């Protein structure tokens, strides 16, 4: 089993996402929620960071938080998967533990 890592801070304001990606194992699940969802946008200054992580880690975005911020699903980085609140719970259950990068 692996761990679920959660990131709720904007990658443009804090380095939580960058450090999370650097210090998590290859089979980890990463869930972006609250201001963390900005990390999933295409065409940004941090796009490469996520796009290269998608290869060996599973990256998820909490849909309600993404939608709240007016971001369109077709502008999400390829390979990132959207989950709802129930999906968040499923991820918590499917992993050994949850590590929050606040």
């Amino acid at each position, binding site marked *: 089993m692996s761990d679920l890592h959660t990131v709720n801070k904007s990658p443009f*304001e804090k380095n939580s996402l960058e450090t999370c990606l650097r210090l998590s194992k290859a089979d980890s699940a990463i869930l972006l929620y*609250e201001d963390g969802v900005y990390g999933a*946008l295409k*065409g940004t200054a941090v*796009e490469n960071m996520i796009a290269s992580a998608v290869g060996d880690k599973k990256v998820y975005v909490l849909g*309600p938080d993404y939608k*709240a911020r007016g971001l*369109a699903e077709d502008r999400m980085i390829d390979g990132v998967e959207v989950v709802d609140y129930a999906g968040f719970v499923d991820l918590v259950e499917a992993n050994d533990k949850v590590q929050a990068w606040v």
Partner: protein
Amino acid sequence: MSDTKNFMFLNRRAPYGTIYAWESLEVVLIAAAFEQNVSLMFADDGVFELTKGQDTAEIGMKNFSPTYRTLGDYEVRHMYVDKASLEARGLTADDLVQVEWEDWETEESVDNIVEVVDSERVAELLAESDVVFSF
């Protein structure tokens, strides 16, 4: 009659994740009600405050983004967006709400007071303001 000052509200935070964006909007409305010259500047994650199509139905928070579109009615004449911040986030002016302004007496009007400006202009505008409020 009291003196009128040029108030600049510098918004650098994304909406919803923290209370900064909403609080700024509240103070903007108060300042405008006291007939000060109010301008808004959006830089860093603040540019996300203006994205079109925000839908907060599923997160249980008030969607305050439609309020920006009413600022013209409160005599807010200028809303500036830092170009570099916008570009770093993969956004263009088309992704942002438009805000109309109309002078009811003279019928002078502007279709959209939201203006994307370069860093040099941002610096000028901040320097020219009497007071800069940071959020």
